[in-house]
């Protein structure tokens, strides 16, 4: 008999460590470059370290505008996704009905198909219906792929909720609305929080669909894309990149702590 926790083979340990480093080192590099004194190239090693660029970035109006737009878009998309996704998850997990599978498929489709398809579909639909690009056309696209994140989290939690708990509440005198408020919502709470934060992160970061649904407005990712294609102010881009990493990490860390011991809530996502 082998022991239940065997030592890992050396080759595996090496390959796994290398894989993990491959994933994490490039992100670490982002942090370092934000402090580089170099202005015109991506020179390694950085000739010197400075905090100057943080101050410069802080003073940039275009960065602030892009950031504000991104936060607004992400907040509203998340709110819409929370409402639509939770209701849909409740319906799908509560009962078996005709077309249940179709609805699951429909919810997952926007992330199962490449983002460019979602993007160009929406763009051509806006063109056909002569809807001008605006803040709301961005939201329309973002909420569509955010629904699935909330939906997945909520469905996983509903699965753990005993079906008899809803019956117990009704048995003890709670009508449908009271059951929702006193039993379902408190048990769904952390799952919704986790799903909402992930939806926010997804929307905050989205670029592919946004390039098709935004007019002249720049979300932060669109701003970055411009910089990537035509670098003009590398140091500012370095700082923005680092800030974006930090801003997306915080919800992930929080979601991780919220869902610890539970199912993996942040897995299985696409863009």
């Amino acid at each position, binding site marked *: 008999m*082998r022991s239940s*926790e065997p030592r*890992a083979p050396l080759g*595996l340990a090496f*390959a*796994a460590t290398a*894989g993990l480093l*491959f*994933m994490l080192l490039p*992100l670490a*590099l*982002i942090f370092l470059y934000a402090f580089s004194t170099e202005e015109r*190239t*991506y*020179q*390694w090693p950085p000739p010197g370290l400075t905090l100057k660029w943080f101050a410069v970035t802080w003073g940039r109006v275009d960065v602030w505008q892009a950031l504000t737009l991104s936060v607004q878009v992400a907040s509203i998309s998340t709110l819409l996704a929370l409402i*639509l*996704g939770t*209701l*849909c998850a*409740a319906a799908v997990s*509560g*009962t078996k009905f005709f077309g249940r599978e179709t*609805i699951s498929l*429909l*919810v997952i*489709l*926007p992330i199962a*198909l*490449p*983002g*460019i*398809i*979602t993007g*160009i579909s*929406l*763009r*051509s*639909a806006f063109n056909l219906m002569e809807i001008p690009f605006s803040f709301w056309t961005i939201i*329309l696209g973002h*909420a569509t792929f955010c629904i699935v994140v909330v939906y997945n989290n909520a469905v996983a939690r509903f699965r753990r909720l005993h079906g008899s708990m809803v019956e117990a509440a009704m048995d003890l005198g709670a*009508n*449908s*609305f009271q059951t929702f408020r006193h039993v379902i919502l408190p048990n769904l709470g952390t799952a919704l929080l986790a799903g909402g934060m*992930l939806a926010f992160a997804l929307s905050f970061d989205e670029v*592919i669909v946004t390039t098709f649904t935004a007019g002249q407005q720049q979300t932060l*990712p669109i701003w*970055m894309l411009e910089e*990537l*294609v035509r670098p003009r102010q590398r140091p500012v881009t370095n700082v923005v*990149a680092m800030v974006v*990493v930090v801003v*997306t990490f915080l919800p*992930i*860390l929080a979601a*991780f702590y919220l869902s610890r011991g539970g199912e993996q809530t942040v*897995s*299985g996502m*696409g*863009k």
Partner: protein
Amino acid sequence: MTALAEAGAILPSRGGIVGALSDLFWRRPKLLVFLMVLPALLWLGIVYVGSLFALLLQSFFYIDDFSGLIVHEFSLRTYAELFRAQNLDIIIRTVSMAAVVTVASAIVAFPVAYWAARYARGPWKAVFYLGIMLPLWASYLVKVYAWKLILAKEGILNWLFEQLHITFLLDWWLSLPLIGGNSLSISYTGTFLVFLYVWMPYMILPIQAAIERVPTNLLDASADLGATPRQTFWKVIFPLALPGIIAGSIFTFSLTLGDYIIPQIVGNSQFFIGQAVYSHQGTAGNIPLAAAFTVVPIVIMVLYLWGAKRAGAFDAL
């Protein structure tokens, strides 16, 4: 309990209209389900599927060669255009890249997933979890940007080769046809590396989930029946992890097929499907051809998903 008055077998309805509505939901549970599904159904049905359908419809229109205007007549002419040499090249290039990226990420991802599922315990479990989650959720553009920094001529990779005095290796590699180029950041090798980096976390998670589902006593049983560790791996673990690999490949394949930003930023000027779609709908104004191009990844993915479903990969998602 003394506080409660003796009540009848049926309690009066409470809460006026809310109570009445609740009673209605109880009597017609399907109505409640319908009302709950309706908003999402309308949203996805109208906004998403509606747009998708409108796009597919336009792929059956075509551009008049003389006027450059879209002719709103049913025709397969635009699809025929897909088979022109230059467009066929784009499709073959994209599909090959997607395939190579998928195979490579499966190879790199497997040990990480296997370690995370089998050996990571206690705090290491959290380290691995976050180590996989953070790159997965880090901003896509930031990840691409990081590689722009890495692959730059004055960047860390060239510096590293120099320090180790193996720059000749890099030069040799870049001199190879097809995969080479003037520098890493404008070669297919560079494009491939960025794709691999950006999509690999999507491969790790399903594999990890599949391996975690293999009961440990199955491995003990295999060893007990006389299998060497190598045999146990190939005969027990690998077949059981395969649905996970296929599930992960759905992500890596689909995401590579549809991407148009990575090859635009790191790579030579040769188009991938995503770029073709983008340029045809944008500057060229050839919406029908752009639409026909989007049908390619959809068809490939539908076939792929159908195959994956038959291989039982959806249980590993």
